[in-house]
């Protein structure tokens, strides 16, 4: 993967750079999906573009339902396998089984949320990717990936004009 990126000291100049890149996309043969923004804190959606709606909440609900079902199955199956009559209660008693179902419903929702989060953002990921440690010092990185070598000079100029403090390239 080759890329060229600029480091911006504030979100206004990063927004400006993105605007310039988007408006000159036909001139510079830039595909919108080849633009990347990386920052050390969440940015406004008007800068970065609107993120697609996530199904994470619904997946959490499904995880909860599966967890609760597993809770009921575990409690009901095991108690019937080895019946322990206790205090005149039925073998599969509603109230205590409800507690098991409740806790495992929550456990299912929590686990589904964690797994969905990790999968949708692709973590953990230890392969090489566009990044610059300057991001941790507050800089905003605006990158273009897989660009033509001939256009690099023009892109560098555009990024600098937009306010980039530094422009770097990855071969």
């Amino acid at each position, binding site marked *: 993967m080759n890329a060229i990126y600029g480091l911006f000291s504030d979100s206004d100049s990063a927004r400006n750079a993105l605007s310039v890149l988007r408006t000159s996309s036909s001139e510079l043969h830039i595909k919108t999906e080849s633009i990347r923004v990386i920052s050390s804190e969440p940015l406004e959606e008007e800068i970065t573009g609107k993120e697609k709606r996530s199904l994470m*909440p619904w997946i959490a609900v499904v995880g909860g339902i599966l967890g609760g079902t597993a809770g009921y199955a*575990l409690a009901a199956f095991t108690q019937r396998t080895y019946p*322990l009559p206790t205090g005149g209660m039925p073998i599969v008693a509603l109230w205590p089984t409800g507690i098991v179902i409740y806790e495992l419903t929550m456990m299912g929702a929590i686990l589904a949320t964690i797994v969905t989060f990790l999968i949708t953002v692709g*973590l953990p990921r230890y392969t090489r990717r566009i990044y610059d440690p300057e991001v941790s*010092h507050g800089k905003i990185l605006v990158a273009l990936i897989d660009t033509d070598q001939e256009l690099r000079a023009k892109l560098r100029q555009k990024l600098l004009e937009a306010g980039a403090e530094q422009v770097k390239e990855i071969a």
Partner: protein
Amino acid sequence: METNRAAQNMADPEAERIREDLLRPLFHTSWRFYTGVGVLVAIGLAGMAAFAYQVYSGMGVAGITRPVFWGFYITNFVFWIGISHAGTLISAILRLVNAGWRRPVTRCAEAITVFALAIGGQFPIIHLGRPWLFFWLIPYPSERHIWPNFRSPLLWDFLAISTYITGSLTFLLLPIIPDWATVRDRSTGLRKRIYTFLALGWQGTPREWHRLELAMRIMSVVIIPVAVSVHTIVSWDFAMALVPMWHSTMFGPYFVAGAIFSGIAALIIAMALLRKFLHLEQYLKPIHFDNLGKLLLLMSLLWLYFIFAERLTVWYGNETSEMATFWSIQRGKFAGLFWTMVFCNFLIPFPILAIKKLRTITGTVIASSTVVVGMWLERFLIVVPPLERKYLPYDWGSYRPTWVEITVMIGTAAGMVLLYVLFAKFVPIISIWEFKGPQSKVSVPAGSFAAPAQSGTGLQPTYQSPLPRGDVGI
């Protein structure tokens, strides 16, 4: 031109100073850290030695004997599970209501939850006669085809605490990932390799931020009912038993209120210590202690209400066996502890917290310290006196803790503090990106604030965004 917080943060060297301040404890270690860790390890080892002695000699070396089979260990179990309510529950509520002042507080609080649960969860195992068989509590298919009894509150405890610690760990760790990435980028050598592994390859793309914030919102919604259920279920360990003054329908809310009460007190003490030793005076400000002090005041009143309601119901019912326990607590053997508890939980903290001039950092720490002591006494008075005075007078008895139980208790408390100290050493105790970040979600028209926000104080006035929160919703 319209400006926004992000622009100010990124361009302002103040933002870099905040990062440096919050990361300083990770990169600089003083002799006080090593001394403190050494002392805590020594105390913890003493506790482990006492526990080893108990395992070797048998439960006879603990003070529990017929009819009092629950003593210090179960008292500490309930106490630490209560303390655990400081973090995740409070943090989740403050996140959901978008309280701006929560930012420097949440991670301090969430860490208390995880470590208090880890310590509290050990006590039922310490309490077992054969602790090496604790895994029998876990529902797993064994060769004997015997499963745990799902109608036992002890199994509910296992499930509730497992769920709560999973949720609390997630709640704590997810927002740490971006901060670990920050540490990664500023480290070298082995430290860099460790933080590179921990940061999981976090970059800071819009998608990562979006999903992280969404996951935290879902977790905030899920974790609140889990937290409530945990201490309710701990209360049902008692309420399900036909023991005088245990078999009560109000035990669930009574325990939850007590847990939040002791949890807030522990949080205030932890914040004061962090503020002093990590030099976080600019971040953990008097306003944070003032706000938490008000919450503590509210919980103190709620605690008094529950204590009164519980005792009035017992007294009015005038049932013989319950009255035996009642009088042993009110004016008998345990009266000294009871009235000390009332002083610690209400009579001392109430005036301190109710009078604005006294609700300073020192004042709230004094009030919190008495509350922690008072809440431990409350747990003890719930566990032990009813077991001494059960239904059959010929089976009455008494309980005195032994040095083994006291040493284990002190050792585990030291273990809790040690875990917290180590956490504060390896993780930014105030979330760096959250401290600066959420303000940047909205463009702030000039003049929107009644007063100019001070960068880095975490005290920016609450600003209601005119913009929709995107397409994200739970």
